[in-house]
Structure formats: structure tokens, C-alpha cells
């Protein structure tokens, strides 16, 4: 054991200075102290590297978008193609970055990605001729694909399936959006939209038949009732 004569306290340490006042310690007796706490130097290097990599990609993303924007403006031919580039970069972050974060519920992530992709493709459609393919075909068919994936999750991950119930409800509600598009006469090819709505109706039937009690409990939980 060592002693600090300034502080008049004993110090159990291998250090040579008093942790309180910094004055040199006096060794009294011979005992060597075992290490009390880990040496902290080897800490979380991996995480910092990961962040650095993300920073590099973030910088490249911004640089690419800016450069394209300037080239687009300087050589303006009536087509804002740089928006497509910037949108594409944002979508890649959405598709690749979100899963890497691993903080989000898988299904919420799927829904976010679906909406992101839909907005992006609508933008491309508008810029290149406004032919209406995005609303006519991509929106409803992408919806059907994501709905199938979510239903599969509910079936496969039975243990945690109450986690996915709420997303199934959200998907069912989203499924009726073509009604609005049809009402405003935005779309002219109807069969994909009808398919999507049929899926939404099936989803609701399925929820009621298989998960009614679960759904009730889940809603009570989320509402803290």
C-alpha cells in the first residue's frame, strides 16, 4: 500500500502519484496492487472506423450531387437530370444505410423504403416525359410486393409477430390510396391498382381472421390502455 502524505490518505494503486493531488506517493510495505480496472486504450476502434467510412460516403454523395447540379445548370437543355442523380443517391442511402443502422423495425423500414422509391420513380417519370408509368404500374405493383414480404415476415417470425401486426395494419390502410388517384383521374391503367386494393382487402380479412385478439392486445399496449 502507498500513502500520500499531503492528503493523509492511503492509496491502493500501482501509480506513482496521488490520484487526488498529484504529489508523489510514499511506498509503505511491499504489496503490489492487482489491476483494479481495465486499461481503456483498446476501446471501440471498430465503431470509429465505421463512422469514418460513412463520412467518406456522405462526402462523396454531396460532392457528386453538387457537381451534377452545376454541370446541369451550366449546360441547361431543359432537362433537370441532376435531380435524378441526387434522388438516386438519397434512395441508395435509404436502401443501404437504413439496414446498416439496425435500429429500425424491419417492416417500418420496408414501408419507408417503398415510399422513398415510389417518390423517386414518380420524379423520374415526371422529368422524362410524364408518361404516367410510375403511378399506373410501379406504385401498385411495388405495394403488392412489399405487402407479400410483410405477410411472409408475419408468418415466418411467429414469435415476434405482434411486432409486425401494426405494420400490416398500416400496409392495409396504405393499400387504398389508388382510390384517391382514380377519383382525381390521375391514372388510366386500372388493373394494377385494383390488384393492390384487392391485396389490401385480403390483408384486412387475414388480420381479422387470424390475429384479431392479438391485434386488440397490441393496440391496447401501444395506446397504454
Amino acid at each position: 500500500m502507498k500513502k500520500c502524505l499531503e492528503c493523509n490518505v492511503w492509496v491502493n494503486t500501482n501509480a506513482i502519484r496521488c490520484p487526488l493531488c498529484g504529489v508523489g506517493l510514499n511506498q509503505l510495505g511491499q504489496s503490489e496492487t492487482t489491476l483494479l480496472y481495465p486499461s481503456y486504450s483498446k476501446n471501440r476502434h471498430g465503431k470509429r472506423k465505421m463512422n469514418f467510412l460513412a463520412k467518406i460516403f456522405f462526402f462523396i454523395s454531396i460532392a457528386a450531387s453538387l457537381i451534377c447540379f452545376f454541370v446541369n445548370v451550366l449546360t441547361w437543355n431543359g432537362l433537370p437530370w441532376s435531380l435524378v442523380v441526387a434522388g438516386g443517391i438519397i434512395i441508395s442511402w435509404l436502401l443501404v444505410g437504413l439496414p446498416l443502422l439496425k435500429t429500425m423495425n424491419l417492416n417500418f423500414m420496408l414501408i419507408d423504403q417503398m415510399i422513398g422509391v415510389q417518390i423517386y420513380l414518380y420524379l423520374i417519370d415526371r422529368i422524362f416525359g410524364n408518361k404516367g408509368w410510375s403511378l399506373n404500374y410501379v406504385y401498385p405493383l411495388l405495394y403488392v410486393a412489399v405487402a407479400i414480404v410483410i405477410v411472409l415476415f408475419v408468418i415466418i417470425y411467429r414469435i415476434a409477430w405482434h411486432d409486425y401486426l401494426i405494420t400490416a395494419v398500416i400496409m392495409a390502410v396504405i393499400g387504398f390510396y389508388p382510390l384517391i388517384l382514380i377519383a382525381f383521374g390521375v391514372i388510366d391503367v386500372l388493373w394494377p391498382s385494383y390488384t393492390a386494393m384487392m391485396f389490401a382487402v385480403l390483408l384486412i380479412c387475414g388480420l381479422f381472421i387470424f390475429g384479431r385478439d392479438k391485434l386488440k392486445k397490441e393496440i391496447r399496449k401501444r395506446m397504454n390502455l
Partner: protein
Amino acid sequence: MKKEDTWFELDTAAKLYPAIMSPKQASVFRLSCTLTDPVDPEMLQTALYVTIQRYPSFNVRLKRGVFWNYFEPNTNHPTVSEETAYPCQMLDASKNNDFLFQVTWFGKRINLEIFHVIADATGGIEFLKTLVFYYLSLQGKVVATQGLIRTLETKIDPEETENSFVRYYDPKIVTSRAEEKAFHYSGSSLPFQHSRLIHGLISTEDLLDKVHAYHATVTEYLTAVLIKAYFNASESLIKSEDIVKISVPINLRAIFPSRTVRNFSFYMNIGEKYQQKDDRFESLLRKVSEQMKEQLQREKILARMNPNVSFEKNAAIRAVPLDVKLAVIRQVHQMIGEDLFTCSLSNIGVIGIPDSMRPFIARFDFGLSTSDKIPVNCSVCSYKGIVSITFSSSIKETTLEKEFFRFLAKDGLQVTIETSEG
């Protein structure tokens, strides 16, 4: 009822923590138990598997509801790991199998770090005691609970997971909690997510003799010493009208009987205006004692804790969506929450361990996390004749700790210092 159907509301005190948690304000505390032999990680892991079955309120993940957060049974398994990070840092549940506590080991020591949202220190100690009990049993040691350890043989009383704040709620007893702002200590910060613990070990017997001579209690005495240490340590920072206020947690179970292992503590702020150095310690201690006796009255505590329960019971406030609530709580906490005290001094007292386990356990330590406004905190526990006083800090300066322990030494107590910095 099936496992996945059970869920818990956050208790009254816990509702604060998801809102304010950040790497700079972890709201984490650490309870450590030093054994007489090096820890066997595999046995510790097995002991943890068993222990978690006994504490459903620890076996949870935090979820977001529409109006409040809630707990849901965690289907993952908690794991133990060797201690590598700095003590009392923010617990990232997503990297911890969604658990809101963490068990680590280093040498002979088992550390239990808990995010305050699931339990207070009294609840945490119960968990740690059970963990160590099963660990020792698995090692083949002949240990008995002697009624002091909650094991799987003792039935889980629903009271253990209740929100006791609500049980003792009385909407008629309320008072204003407006208080003067307190002095804030500061220094040069340690790097991000670094922290330092300094333990001071004193003989329990000597300390009791000392405080009895002053006609005070241990908490009163240490609080007065801490205020004095602040006066001495911050002479250049402090103004004569500044008040040093120590926030002393009260274990409500002592006043309002409850077996809950979740949060059931409140606090009292004990303050004293800055005085010159040569003022007598006895008079300071007397003032501290008086304030504590006054604030520890049952009615006074109820009147100050009831507004929290009214807040959560208010239908209009309930209807506000979670994110808005969290943002408001965060703002209010930033503006006034921590302004009212200089630091905490949390004394969980003597840790009751069955005689059969005592030969295998050398020591207990208790540590708190810090924040930007409160860079130093103090915590105390006692076991087997040793009082362990721990200062956790996120600043480089050790002036406060130095003044505190020098005062104890000058007052005739033999102090042994240990630190997390080797």
C-alpha cells in the same frame, strides 16, 4: 397468460429517462460486487440466465407506444462480457440484445450497470444479490438465502413489479416545488464518453463513532462534508450568494412499504449558502441535519412527489403523442431539472448479505453517471465493515475529491483511495 401478452407501463419516475437519455447524460448507475476469487464468466452467464427469470421487470425491452413508452418481455438472452468500457456510460440497448442493464466482469469484480428506466439502486441491489447467490451456488459453495435473497423458489409477488408511486398517490396532498437555483461545479471535460471513478474506503465502525459524536447520521455527515468540499474546491468560481445543493435520494420503501424492484425513490435537495472557509463545520452539519429531518417527513415527501403522478394521470397530457411529450420533457429538464442541485449524494446504506455468502464476497461499490451540468456525483454503500464512497466524474480536475477525502482524513478517519485510472 402467455409471455408475449404481458407488458408494463413505465413507472412514474422512469417516464423521464427515455426523454433525457444521451451519451452525455446516461442516467446509468453501477453496482459492483467484488468476490474473493476471480470471476468465472461461464458460471456468471449461467447465473444470469437463472436470475433474469426471477425479475420480469428486468427482462424487458423498451418500446414506443402512441402516448408513452412501454416495456415488453424481451425474448433475447442477456449476456455477460468482460469490462472494457468506461464506467456508467450510456447503455445502447440495440447493441445489448435490447436489454436495459448490462453485466460485466473484471478480475474478481462483477459489475451490474442499469439504465435508471427499469430500476433504482435498491431494485438493482436485489437483482445483483440474486445473481451473486446463483453464481456462488453454481460454484458449489454452500449458501443459503436466509430470507435475504429473492430466488426462483420464492414466488414473484405482483407487488415487485408495481408502480408504487401510484399506490401511495393522493391528489389532495400537493405543494409547489419551486426552488432556488443551485451552484454548478465545472472543470475541463474528459474526452467524450470517458469517465473516472475514485473510491474512498473507510471503516464503518470508525465512521459511525465519528457521526455519533456529532449526533448526526452518516448521510447527514457526508452531505455536510460534501458541501464543505464544494466550498473549498470552488473558491474561484463561487459567489457569496451561491447555494451549494446536494440532491439526496430517498428510498421511499423505507417510508411507504413496498416490495417493488422498479423505481421507487425520490430526492431531497439539501442546500447551504457559500460561507468562508473558517466557518465551523459543526454549525453546517447542524443545518444539514435540520433540513433533512424536515424534508423526510412523510407528508412533505408525498406533497412533492404527487405532482409527478398527477402529471401522468392528467387525461389531456396523456393524449399528447409520445414524441411531443418527450420533446417537452427534454426541454423542461434541460431548463430547470438539473438547475436545482449541484450534485447527488446517494447512500444505499448497508447491503444485507446472508452470513453463508459473506465469506465469498469482499466488497460492494456503487457509482452514478454524470451529465454536462453535474460533472461529479457521489455515491455510498456499506458492506462487511467497509464504507465505499465513490466519486464518478467526467472532468479532469480532482479538486473536489481531494477536498472531500482530505476533510475526512483531517477529521480523524483513515481513508484508502482506489481509482479507475490504474
